[in-house]
């Protein structure tokens, strides 16, 4: 039993990502979408917190949202995977439920 969490807020604007990381269970997936993708970049004050969770949690970003914001794939935290909308659908189907961190 696992959950797909979606986070669509920049971690610098709200606590959505922090709260999601605090509540997600091992084996869950966090998909960063929209402004949420800023949470997957290296070199930020949050990068260490996110990096520490990679492994226990699977952390993904929506590729279209990364490109739209000019974030190079090379800037993503190691272990973060990029998926397109079809990949998003696959994640939603392969987890038991989905929870949006609005």
């Amino acid at each position, binding site marked *: *039993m696992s*959950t797909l969490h979606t986070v669509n807020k920049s971690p610098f604007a709200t606590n959505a990502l922090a*709260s999601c990381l*605090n*509540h*997600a269970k091992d084996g869950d997936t966090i998909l960063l979408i929209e402004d949420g993708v800023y949470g997957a970049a290296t070199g930020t004050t949050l990068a260490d917190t996110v990096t520490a969770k990679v492994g226990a949690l699977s952390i993904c970003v929506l590729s279209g949202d990364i490109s739209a914001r000019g974030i190079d794939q090379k800037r993503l935290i190691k272990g973060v995977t990029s998926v397109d909308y079809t990949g998003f659908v696959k994640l939603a189907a392969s987890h038991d*439920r989905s*929870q949006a*961190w*609005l």
Partner: protein
Amino acid sequence: MADNIKKFLYVNRRAPYGTIYALEALEVVLIGAAFDQDVSLAFFDDGVFQLTKGQNTEEIGVKNFSPTFRALGDYDVTKLYVEQESLDERGLTAADLQEITYEDEDDDWAEKPSLKIVSRAELSDIMADQDVVLSF
């Protein structure tokens, strides 16, 4: 439990009045109650502010919907989980929250508290045990 009953969780992470989300979430809960599902509400992060006592909206000219929480028991909505850590972070204790109760028909209509203060870990378990998670 019958096959056609699902576990519904309403996630409340936002404060009231600044935006309409809390009020319109409550409207879904009230309508949803008629569907006889296994309903829980989670209040954490700023969502705990929805439950505070003493809300008075007279001056802002917006409807005070906080008394509606006390009516949820009449709709058989009796599981309102509040996260302890979220209260702590905001300088609140259980005493700052409204008293919300229900009458337990399986226990000679004894009055019981609907608000259940739980730890972050307990809330995580509750959220991971749902079929449908509605966030607003």
